[in-house]
């Protein structure tokens, strides 16, 4: 018999989607959070509305690790369809909680694990009149059972129900009755387990928030001044636009008693991108959000915006691709597509948030960068970051003035006239590759120009002249070089004398943090560089140069970021060993440790 750990537990709940388990899982997760225990949740759901298997993992981690854990301690076996496999997903010595309303079939019995039954069907039948509600409420039974087994106080559950359904007392009551039934049943039976105890940590999560990356990005966009938003529904990005729909009316001040924003559900992603381009051209802060298939459709517009130099922000919440791929699973496989989006020579700025605060902050700053560089800017998320709930420090607003870039109003143009200067839309006045722009509505006679995706000269005139064309392309390249000085720098953690490096970006950050601790415990110290943007900044080649070997963690098959780095720094690229996770599930530290140690062994052999 093992001694129970304190606050270290990984629960996996297996249910059918559409069965209401989202609500019960949420209550369970928030209860653990409310106890002050560091915890995270990962939702692994199918691309379907009802009836397919779904798994929800809740990890409590005394040490504060928030990534998905690959060892499952407790399996809530509430889906018959996957039960035969689920019993083997739980570790030896783990626990299976199942509905024993009917006897457990022989093929679902396994050695080396503890089974605890709770007659959920029977209990709920007593409490809830026959209705579609009954199936949903059944899931509340396991919440109560787990609460009893691991020591979640019913008062905590009540508080969570109050937070969640505060204005619906009837809902609170019916949920509470079912949760309590599960709790009391196991209490009366005297069920026990020796895996873990959950213990309140006073002030443990004090001041912490729970949110998801899509919501944090939507809030960042609002604080960044997004005023024209056009989008087309696609998982896992829809909830970003939906969060905008939810928060804009609450947060954005009215003007003239009316709305100071426009949000449009477009007819397709081409139109969504087209509206962004039209609005950006006309001077608004415009954005869209989408995922891989939508990004593919937006490509022509993105090229136009790049070449005609129109600002716009594109939030890309990556999922398993290509094509429909695994629409509800996570990946970072659209990096190359974003970086070189569209035909012809293009290069784009990409921001790479890795946690809730950077989602908020980089979303906000993306609008400044788009205006400063008059170009599309991508904010790249993935499903894990975008849709899973993360506990986090509260979102912080960096109070900075908006950077509207080199946008000239009529008065400024008049000063130019007085100074004998001419407004030349596509001319590199300052040597940084960034031209000046005017926007429609500017009444100054020098302001208007004709925007086109066709060849144009420095004065925005139609031109197929080879020198004119090359001038613009070269200037665009210079502009991109300038961007290296403006984009967020990587975050580096290093110790003197350590010669092994790890680079990662986005949602890999949390598992990498945990993996590095585990590697350290096994004698391998590593330094770390968290990439936060493309184009690459000078810190990246410096970091490569300082290390003998650098493990680059990314969530795609083809090592897309490694290819970009190797392409830019061929002399240093040989130091990179790619660590790739691309099965669609959130990365685990265990997988990273395994891959890194294997790579070391094979290098040593």
């Amino acid at each position: 018999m093992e001694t129970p750990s304190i606050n270290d537990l990984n629960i996996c709940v297996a249910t059918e989607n559409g069965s209401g388990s989202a609500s019960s899982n949420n209550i369970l997760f928030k209860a653990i959070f409310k106890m002050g225990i560091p915890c995270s949740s990962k939702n692994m759901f199918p691309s379907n509305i009802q009836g397919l298997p779904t798994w929800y993992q809740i990890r409590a981690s005394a040490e504060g690790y928030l990534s998905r854990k690959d060892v499952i301690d407790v399996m809530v076996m509430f889906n018959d369809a996957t039960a035969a496999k689920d019993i083997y997903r739980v570790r030896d010595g783990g626990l299976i909680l199942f509905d024993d309303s009917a006897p457990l079939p022989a093929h679902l019995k396994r050695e080396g694990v503890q089974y605890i039954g709770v007659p959920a069907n029977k209990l709920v039948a007593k409490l809830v009149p026959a209705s579609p509600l009954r199936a949903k409420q059944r899931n509340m039974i396991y919440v109560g059972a787990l609460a009893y087994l691991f020591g979640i106080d019913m008062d905590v559950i009540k508080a969570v129900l109050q937070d969640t359904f505060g204005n619906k007392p009837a809902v609170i009551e019916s949920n509470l009755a079912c949760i309590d039934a599960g709790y009391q049943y196991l209490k009366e039976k005297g069920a026990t387990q020796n895996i873990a105890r959950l213990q309140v940590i006073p002030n443990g999560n004090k001041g912490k928030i729970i949110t998801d990356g899509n919501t944090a990005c939507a809030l960042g966009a609002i604080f960044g001044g997004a005023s024209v938003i056009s989008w087309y529904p696609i998982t896992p990005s829809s909830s970003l636009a939906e969060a905008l729909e939810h928060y804009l009316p609450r947060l954005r001040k009215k003007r003239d008693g009316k709305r100071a924003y426009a949000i449009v559900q477009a007819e397709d992603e081409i139109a969504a991108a087209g509206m962004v381009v039209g609005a950006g051209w006309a001077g608004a802060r415009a954005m869209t959000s989408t995922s891989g298939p939508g990004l593919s459709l937006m490509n022509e517009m993105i090229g136009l915006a790049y070449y005609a130099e129109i600002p716009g922000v594109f939030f890309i919440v990556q999922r398993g691709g290509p094509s429909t791929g695994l629409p509800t699973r996570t990946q970072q496989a659209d990096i190359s597509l974003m970086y070189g989006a569209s035909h012809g020579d293009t290069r784009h700025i990409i921001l790479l948030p890795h946690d809730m605060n950077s989602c908020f902050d980089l979303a906000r700053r993306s609008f400044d960068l788009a205006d400063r560089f008059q170009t599309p800017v991508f904010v790249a998320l993935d499903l894990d970051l975008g849709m899973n709930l993360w506990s986090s420090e509260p979102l912080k607003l960096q109070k900075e003035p908006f950077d509207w870039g080199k946008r000239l109003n009529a008065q400024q143009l008049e000063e130019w006239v007085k100074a004998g200067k001419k407004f030349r839309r596509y001319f590199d006045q300052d040597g940084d590759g960034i031209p000046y722009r005017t926007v429609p509505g500017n009444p100054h006679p020098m302001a208007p120009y004709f925007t086109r995706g066709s060849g144009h000269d420095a004065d925005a005139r139609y031109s197929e002249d080879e020198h004119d064309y090359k001038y613009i392309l070269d200037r665009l390249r210079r502009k991109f070089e300038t961007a290296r000085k403006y984009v967020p720098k990587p975050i580096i953690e290093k110790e003197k004398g350590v010669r092994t490096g790890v680079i990662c970006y986005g949602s890999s950050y949390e598992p990498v943090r945990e993996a590095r601790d585990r590697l350290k415990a096994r004698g391998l110290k590593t330094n770390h560089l968290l990439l936060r943007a493309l184009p690459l900044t000078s810190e990246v080649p410096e970091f490569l140069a300082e290390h003998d070997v650098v493990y680059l963690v990314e969530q795609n098959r083809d090592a897309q970021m490694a290819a970009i780095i190797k392409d830019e720094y061929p002399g240093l690229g040989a130091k990179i060993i790619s660590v790739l996770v691309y099965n669609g599930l959130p990365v685990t530290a265990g997988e990273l440790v395994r891959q890194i140690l294997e790579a070391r062994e094979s290098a040593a052999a």
Partner: protein
Amino acid sequence: MTDVKRNRINLTEKDYEGAPSTMCRGCGHDAISASVMRAFFESSIDPRKVIKLSGIGCSSKTPAYFLGQSFGFNAVHGRMSAVATGANLANHKLLPIGISGDGDTAAIGLGNFCHMMRRNVNITYIVENNGVYGLTKGQFSATADIGSVMKGGKVNDIPAIDLAELAITLGATYVARSFSGDRKQLAPLIQGALAHRGSAILDVISPCVTFNNHEGSTKSLKYVKGHLDPIHDVDFIPPYENIEADYEEGTDHEVRLHDGSRIVLHKLSKDYDPTDKGQAITAVHAAVAEGKFLTGLIYYNPNRIDFATELDLCDTPLAELGQEDLQPTAEQLDEINASFMK
């Protein structure tokens, strides 16, 4: 040059010109540009308040050839509707005019075009309809009539999309058809479209003299001229003119636009009420069956509000709002954070 005609805002016709055209000599598109300039001049519209938008094609190049003092945007093939929608939301105080071709609108851009009309985005949208793709050298477009012959002899055996009918069905609120060569009719129709708030669609037959002007084409100059069927003569009366139009009670029709201007439709052959949707669709059908081009103001709906109004956009254009207007306060973020602690 004291005898140069000036309009109410003291501009001359020259002030509405653009860069020299690069269309083929005799192309219908140039004639439409001339009507566009005339309409803006006559309506005394400040070019600085106009935005010109287009897709890709010969037709879509033409915004460069009029209103050189306005901002212009020649976007990508078929997507002007979406780009114009975005621009309109960013600054609904500006007056958008969109120029497109039948390939641009009826083929690649059909979806976006439909949804722009469904939303009733405020725009004057002119389709310069020649039945072919001019810029890619003469392929059939989706408005080519069944049985019409391509320059090389190929016969089109797929029915045409009738853009006027489509526009009426999908929610456009001002739908007209005209002919590039009929400036007398076209210019006031454009003036009316500019005064209208909502999607004004003008399907203008505009012969491509280079690729679709032969025997067997139903969009050649000769064929079109022989098959025009104007419903009415059109007079546009701007809001500042108090004149009483002399129209015949009971047969002529007067359309009042949002800004107080009026369009007077003088009956030619039949009584026609453009606000009657059913009659409009029937009339378009009947003309097509007879192989005729019904021209004039075919449909007008005074009751629908435009998209920016529907979205309840503030009077100040979104593009002109500053950080004080756009950024919520740190206290508001604190409240959001507090709600995330629950």
